[in-house]
């Protein structure tokens, strides 16, 4: 039900993102989605990749601080109001979103929303009850 996400600590200095993506490319790891949260001094890069363990290992070997978190991937139709529906359902259940990011799949029909909720268990129950499609890791990598 939950999808593994890796997070990487980044100092705000030039070339770091390029280095990470190069390392992943060399190791034939495919990035499905990413987001960067940043302050003036540092950033947190979050990645959904097809080979989580391998990505973690190679990034660590290259001196990066890597964390692993579980996030929730929700698939919606790529139509106006799609995200609003999901957020309304979550809001009604009184659950806070810690962060989210999104990508559109190859066919361009559906969008995938990646969520980190304050209460992951309750969020799953709520979204399932409201008939949203929750993707597994395999499904994400197959997109």
């Amino acid at each position, binding site marked *: 039900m939950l999808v593994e996400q890796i997070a990487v600590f980044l100092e705000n200095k030039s070339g770091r993102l390029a280095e990470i993506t190069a390392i992943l490319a060399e190791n034939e790891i495919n990035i499905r989605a990413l987001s960067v949260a940043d302050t003036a001094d540092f950033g947190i890069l979050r990645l959904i990749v097809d080979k989580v363990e391998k990505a973690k290992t190679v990034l660590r070997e290259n001196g990066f601080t890597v*964390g692993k978190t579980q996030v929730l991937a929700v698939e919606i139709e790529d139509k106006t109001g799609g995200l609003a529906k999901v957020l309304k359902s979550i809001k009604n259940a009184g659950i806070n979103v810690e962060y989210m990011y999104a990508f559109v799949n190859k066919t361009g029909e559906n969008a995938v929303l990646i969520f980190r909720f304050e209460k992951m268990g309750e969020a799953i129950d709520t979204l399932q009850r409201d008939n949203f499609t929750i993707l597994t890791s395999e499904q994400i990598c197959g997109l």
Partner: protein
Amino acid sequence: MYWQKDQECLPRPDLEKLQLERLRATLRRVANNVPFYRNKFAELQLRPDQLTALEELRDYPFTTKQDLRDNYPYGLFAVPLRDVVRVHSSSGTTGIATVVGYSRNDIITWSDLVARILCGAGVTPDDVIQIAFGYGLFTGGFGLHYGAERLGASVIPISSGNTKRQIKIMQDFKTTALVCTPSYALKMADVMMDMGVNPNGLSLRYGLFGAEPWSEAMRQEINERLGIRATDNYGLSEVMGPGVAGECRECNGLHISEDHFFIEIINPDTLEPVAPGEVGELVITTLTKEAFPVIRYRTRDLTRLLPEPCPCGRTFVRMSRVMGRSDDMLIIKGVNVFPTQIEAVLFEIEGTEPHYRLVVERENNEDKLTVMVEVVESIFFDEMKKQRALVETIKKRLASELGIGVEIKLVEERSLERFDGKGTRVIDKRRL
């Protein structure tokens, strides 16, 4: 110009005789009352009663800051607590704080010694003295306060901080003497400029500065910008606090109150005495302290003695201003900071050996300490909220540990240079 002329101008032979008597009495007293000293003396078969010359003190063991920490809080007190009327302490909650105590007589002596320094700098009972040192466990505030009262000056115990208010009070109360750190005096000059206050319109005449290293260039700048005569004074809480030594109006070295402190200058590596006039580490033995005597305390401050007689008439030897440290202690905003204190806090938070770097700068005459911390997995979060909360936690813990505010900069793992053993983790960019 003198507070206690008879003592301050005592002929050297008489002074040395007095020192020997007092030294023998102090050694005898610590051997009787302080197990730490008793055991050390016994091990080395030292008999205070048999001390016949000041030079024989060299046979006695040194006392270090670590000894003070090991005996935290009251282990080195030489009188029962009921005879202690005051305690002061260094900052620190990680088990490396030190505590010192004062008997009623110690407070009187301390007040007199501070009064000597004020007098030497030119302060009289007619002066209004603004004490902008922190009051509290730090010895600076209370030390100067009691000395200034003893002298009979009018004391404004304003304590540290709130520079605009300091200046307002300085104007309204017609302060004539200012006590603070030299960098804070320059900060005040900056703020006066911002406020449109002309220092020439103030009543200020004297500045008594201490608690941090400074230079002749800084003295010139302070004198010119504030229109005062700045003098240096020296002390440390382990020995007493301010009042150990101070400049007279010659402004050429600090007279050490040798009737109360016996001074040695040693090579910090060989621990042997340096040749007269050479730079070395200052070692102090208290001669009259009752509650907290120290024997051959290694101050870690580097200085040299100026043996030539001073035109002021005082017979007490002068030391040059402190030139540096023989350990890794930093003085930031007048507060003593050891890298180990920071390391201990980071270790607690990270749960592992921290990798860090300290950067000290002086911006607008104010010291700024930035702690660069490598982010390891135990302190890395995928949520920005938590990552920023971590920065705040480190900030707060360090502020409470050190007693000064710090900046935190998180850096990537393995981005800081590694040091083998006792390498320096400190980059001090201050130019004094």
